């Protein structure tokens, strides 16, 4: 995503340097998680819904090739052109070709994590296309030349002062006016002019329905609709796992999605596209980009059930305190940490380790992905494939040795206590001991619990 070779721990270090801001980020996301809980508690059959959603997705993955063919046939019959892209570069070239064929210069885009994954924006801009992101959060980060830090709340890492400064620079809003109402109004006026002037709109896809060849796009702002209905050409981009078998299954997924994401009973607009309007062109680009490979990994394939609600982000103690950019990928958070090693094992080998394995992600997941189990399983794969630093490997091996031999363990304990008492500067040292960076060392006890027990209770 970013041109960086830093890993999650190094990028987090930069993020947490500002302590009050880290606390604010943590609390803001926890607030979203709390809203999710309130919404969920209004639905007594919540667990049943999760079970249905998970089972529908499992079924779909087990029959995915047939559903994709059904979807394509029905979409074609509806007058929609379907394209297939094996990877990010195919996807970007298909989109560019549609633009070239129609002499399109100006494009509006609503949120699509797939196009982030494929780095579509920089590719189009290099090829002379004006691309305007129209989701407010995405427009903010686009002005700042940053990637989104969250798949549902793209600018959640920013404070209103930051947005005010960015809008002052790009939209000439009043300097120092930090009122969200005022800033949103400025974006509304600015983006309405873009909707009117644009020739082509790109949207993502939340759900694609095999039995009808239609697709559903969910937004709160209405930007996908403003773009798609105003433009002469609409391109919808989707990873192939967005397929669901039937329209009636939307009843299950739309009850889960917004409640899990933001705690709303539903998103404001759930738009169902089936046919282009008179005179309009409608295209769908179906993308693989590593997904078929993930489907072939039995331990990891059910990550493809994800509906991108980001509940796992909001609940994650590591995400909340390290920020989305520390994951250096389009999809951050726990789900990103099990998806990205499949795309590039070397570049993303750090991510499955950015977790406490507390399991909260799996508990809130509306489609019951075993996220924390998969994080743990990825660690095994990455070590076996040689993608883990030698220091970590040695440390784990040393730890295993010490814990396997009680005598070694006792000697090591004694040495440790002695060092902490006599030479505290060795352990209370940020250079030698990374554990000490954000923590105080405990006071070393005089004896181990074992020694104390033998002395005081051993005889009885």
């Amino acid at each position: 995503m970013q041109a960086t070779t830093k890993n999650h721990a190094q990028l987090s270090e930069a993020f947490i340097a500002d302590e009050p801001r880290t606390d604010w980020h943590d609390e803001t996301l926890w607030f979203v998680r709390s809203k999710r809980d309130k919404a969920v508690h209004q639905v007594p059959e919540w667990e049943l819904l999760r079970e249905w959603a998970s089972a529908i997705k499992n079924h779909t993955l087990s029959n995915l090739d047939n559903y994709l063919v059904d979807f394509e046939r029905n979409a074609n019959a509806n007058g929609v052109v379907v394209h297939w892209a094996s990877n990010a570069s195919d996807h970007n070239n298909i989109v560019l070709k549609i633009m070239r064929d129609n002499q399109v210069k100006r494009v509006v885009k609503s949120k699509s994590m797939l196009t982030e994954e494929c780095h579509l924006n920089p590719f189009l801009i290099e090829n002379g296309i004006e691309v305007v992101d129209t989701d407010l959060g995405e427009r903010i980060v686009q002005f700042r030349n940053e990637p989104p830090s969250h798949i549902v709340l793209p600018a959640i890492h920013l404070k209103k002062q930051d947005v005010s400064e960015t809008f002052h620079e790009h939209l000439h809003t009043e300097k120092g006016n930090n009122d969200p109402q005022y800033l949103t109004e400025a974006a509304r006026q600015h983006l309405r002019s873009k909707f009117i002037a644009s020739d082509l709109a790109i949207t993502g896809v939340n759900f694609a329905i095999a039995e009808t060849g239609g697709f559903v796009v969910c937004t709160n702002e209405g930007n996908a609709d403003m773009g798609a209905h105003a433009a002469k050409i609409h391109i919808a981009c989707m990873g192939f796992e967005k397929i669901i078998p039937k329209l009636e299954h939307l009843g299950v997924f739309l009850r889960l999605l917004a409640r899990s994401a933001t705690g709303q009973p539903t998103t404001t607009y759930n738009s169902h596209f089936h046919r282009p309007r008179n005179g309009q062109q409608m295209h769908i680009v179906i993308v693989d980009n590593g997904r078929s490979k993930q489907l072939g990994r039995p331990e990891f394939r059910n990550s493809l059930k994800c509906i991108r609600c980001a509940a796992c982000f909001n609940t994650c103690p590591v995400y909340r305190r390290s920020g989305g950019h520390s994951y250096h990928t389009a999809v951050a958070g726990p789900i990103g940490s099990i998806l990205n090693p499949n795309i590039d094992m070397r570049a993303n080998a750090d991510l499955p380790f950015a977790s406490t394995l507390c399991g909260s992600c799996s508990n809130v997941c509306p489609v019951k992905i075993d996220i924390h189990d998969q994080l743990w399983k990825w660690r095994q794969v990455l070590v076996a494939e040689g993608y883990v630093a030698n220091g970590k490997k040695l440390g784990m091996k040393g730890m295993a040795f010490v814990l396997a031999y009680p005598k070694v363990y006792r000697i090591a304990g004694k040495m440790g206590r002695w060092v902490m008492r006599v030479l505290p500067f060795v352990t209370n040292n940020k250079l030698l001991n990374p554990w000490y960076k954000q923590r105080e060392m405990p006071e070393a006890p005089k004896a181990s619990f074992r020694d104390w027990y033998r002395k005081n209770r051993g005889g009885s």
Partner: protein
Amino acid sequence: MSRASILTAITNNKPSLVDLPIIDINAVIQYDDVVAQFKAVLESIGGLAIELNNMQELESEVQAEKAKGHYIINTLPELGEVDKDLATQVVATLETVHKAYLRGAIAVAENGAVWLYEHQMVNRLSPFICQHLVLVVEKRNIVATMHQAYQHIDAGKEGFGVFIAGPSKTADIEQSLVIGAHGARSLVVYLV
């Protein structure tokens, strides 16, 4: 090229077939009073639901709005003259619409959403581009949850259709809720 290789890869890598679950709608929440539930939820998401005794009350509102010189879209014959050019109207003109009066097919009690078919919008942009949106739904067409909603509508019948729940909104700046992002700044649903 890509199509064949993607489909082949999926065929080779997919797990063995598992069944679809049976969705038992009797197992989901029911409301004693779907009208009250719909009203309460719509208000909680920034909209307003008003029960109406007769369409004349609304007709006079439409006439009064028009008299003020605002650009008003009316698609309901019972509310007076309907806009004949709406289907083909250009975007730049639609952008000046102050208020749109549209009929919705059904309303959903659990989440405050109203379903609109394309023919009810006349122009796909009309419910989104107007500054203020007014929807008219028959009280007998309120269902409890989204499961019943999909039983009542045929969501793939027309080229486009949408569930709208409340006015356009965003919380992208510090999680502060702002009503009126890109779409309508207000939504009133009249229940008749």
